């Protein structure tokens, strides 16, 4: 058995160096050369400043923008580091609400959000993704129905025609991959950037 000790130490160190350093560092180099923008996090710049990542949702509260899904992410409480406070779309601390199917807190939150959306657009059924929090709290997407639902509000805030916005939503809708995998979706940040451009014209 004693002769197993040398391999236990040396082999561990060698394999650690290969898999823990050489491999990730080599992949960083190769990925950076082949897909530089994606390897950095698909960042979007506007006027030379980073405004976010194409893949990471951000919070929209203004009526003139399409809103993303509710986010359950938190941040450390500045007054008491053992506690946390709500911090939607905190991209440095992802996470979901983790509320279960019989949670009273979830039922109350859903009711409040549904009522708010119904008041905003009484003519359409509330899409489920607009009132449920995502798993990461950073979901960049909403469903096409979720975007269409918000058209009347955005149109009013921007003084734009609903038809124009509906078209904008349609052209920013991404289908299933090869018509099969995943779900149709609208990237909220991309849609809002397109909206700003359309409004500027």
């Amino acid at each position, binding site marked *: 058995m004693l*002769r*197993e000790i*040398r391999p*236990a130490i*040396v*082999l561990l160190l*060698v*394999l650690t160096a*290969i*898999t*823990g*350093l050489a*491999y*990730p*560092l080599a*992949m960083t180099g190769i*990925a950076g050369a*082949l897909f530089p923008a994606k390897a*950095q996090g698909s*960042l979007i710049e506007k006027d030379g400043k*980073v*405004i*976010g*990542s*194409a*893949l990471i949702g*951000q*919070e*929209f509260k203004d009526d003139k923008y399409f809103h993303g899904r509710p986010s359950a992410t938190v941040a450390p409480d500045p007054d008491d580091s053992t506690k946390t406070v709500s911090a939607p*779309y905190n991209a*440095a*601390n*992802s996470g*979901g*609400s*983790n*509320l*279960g199917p*019989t*949670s009273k807190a979830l*039922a109350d939150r*859903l009711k409040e959000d*549904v009522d708010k959306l119904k008041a905003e657009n009484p003519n359409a059924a*509330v899409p*489920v*993704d607009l*009132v*449920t*929090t*995502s798993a*990461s*709290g*950073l979901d960049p*997407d909403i469903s096409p129905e979720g975007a269409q639902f918000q058209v009347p509000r955005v149109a009013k805030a921007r003084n734009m025609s609903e038809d124009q916005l509906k078209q904008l939503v349609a052209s920013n809708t991404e289908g*299933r991959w090869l018509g*099969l*995998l995943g*779900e149709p*979706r609208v990237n909220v940040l991309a849609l809002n*950037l397109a909206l700003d451009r359309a409004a500027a014209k």
Partner: protein
Amino acid sequence: MTVIGWLQIILFCVIIVALTKPLGWYMTRVFNGEKTLLSPVLRPIEAGIYWVSGVDEKREQHWLTYTVAMLLFHVGGFLVIYGVMRLQAVLPFNPAAQGAVAEDLSFNTAVSFITNTNWQNYGGESTLSYLVQMLGLTHQNFLSAATGIALAVALIRGFSRASMRTVGNFWVDVTRCTLYVLLPICVVYSLFLVWQGMPQTLGDYVEATTLEGAKQTIAVGPVASQVAIKMLGTNGGGFFNANAAHPFENPTALSNFVQMLSIFALGAALTNVFGRMVGNQRQGWAILSVMGVLFIAGVTVTYWAEAHGTSMLQALGLTGGNMEGKEVRFGVVASALFAVITTAASCGAVNAMHDSFTALGGMIPLINIELGEIVVGGVGAGMYGMLLFVILAIFVAGLMVGRTPEYVGKKIEAREVKMAMLAILVLPLMILGWTAVGVVYPAAVASMANAGPHGFTEVLYAYTSGTGNNGSAFAGLTGNTFFYNLTLACAMFVGRFFMIVPAMAIAGSLAGKKSIPPSTGTFPTTGGLFVGLVVGVILIMGGLTFFPALALGPIVEHLAMNAGNLF
């Protein structure tokens, strides 16, 4: 449930079955020490590694030596992870200036990664430096996976050899698995993931000013290289807190689909390795069929439950299924499928929050782990776990007809059955034992996030996941406490190694036996009757053991939900 949903599920199954044979062929060659396509490049590196570490690749080990070598290897692995976590503040590659990780959390995480559990009491982007992610986590993702596969291959050799004292050489198996199987796939795979949008950078977290003018700090890092092995090695520990639900850790529907495939690929291929090594591939297909039956049943229930939604959603007129804790790009079907896959294998990555699943939808992941994660299972662990159940099933069949049971030419006798039972009893002991403590000990009760039966399920899930070395969670439970860090580490350790040692004892005992040719009285182990018998034994064992606990958690919650009770 929709047609397009089922098409995605069927496509997944078809691709896994199609991959099983070629991957099994390749892995068999690797573990038999034969030449492969990659040998011209990798053979010199392999020989060099043996030379510096003093490994004689021709010398095989007795099962006990093999096991001791494996344990020594893990002591070292534990020290590396624990060390880099405690020292991360003074080590390089720490752009977010993370401080030293606390002792209990470092201990829990180190045990978690050497046991292939990868339970996340750590927060990823909010706790760990890039160096820990690479040197601590990525490296152990490789080595714990390679260890699992090596052990499964050693047990398979026990079946395929006759009258031999040895079961292989642990150092050679681990090295070959890492170099020839895991690394080459991961190199290609991580580039694919970056192409899909996954970051791979050592740069700082990004400070962005959002369209509405708010500040957003975006965590990035060397994600792709870790995620590739996290999935392929069924480790499942996330780079980010939200794991594979995080858009950076799973950017597209396609990346999600490939991640699901990579969880099952090696585990499924091992059934074929088994068939090839015992000289009859149909033996492997029979085992894969057992797994397939249990898998399809699980997917059907979870998909139905999540698509059906909860009564509180229905009461508000919200249709489209239970989207709380799910991502739009995956939707209900890919989230349900992922949950069943990740718990059928011992992966534990999640692309949706299991804590927010419906009661029945969340029960299937729980059952999957409690049955021992034998549906494909963790790389290696699933195969040796399944073989333990096969031994029991064969034993039951032998009792029925009054003959000494045989399996692939080996007599299954008292020693094998005792060892198999010993290994399987670890599950109820750790899961039910610790859950019982967790629901009465005040400091543990305070960790529950949900009230009522759901809170109980959170605790049950935690110990189930820990013992089964899965790593997924009902994540509302605050696991990063002294109590949970220590008790979960205990569950993970016992769940891994107290299963491995009896399995290896079986390997040694079988390898020493003569191989007997099948006779007319031999129970055929390639047909439907055998598949049905194994499925039956698994369900009866699991059912009898865990039904009372499930009745207190998800089942009563489902009834409460339908009755309109909230907690």
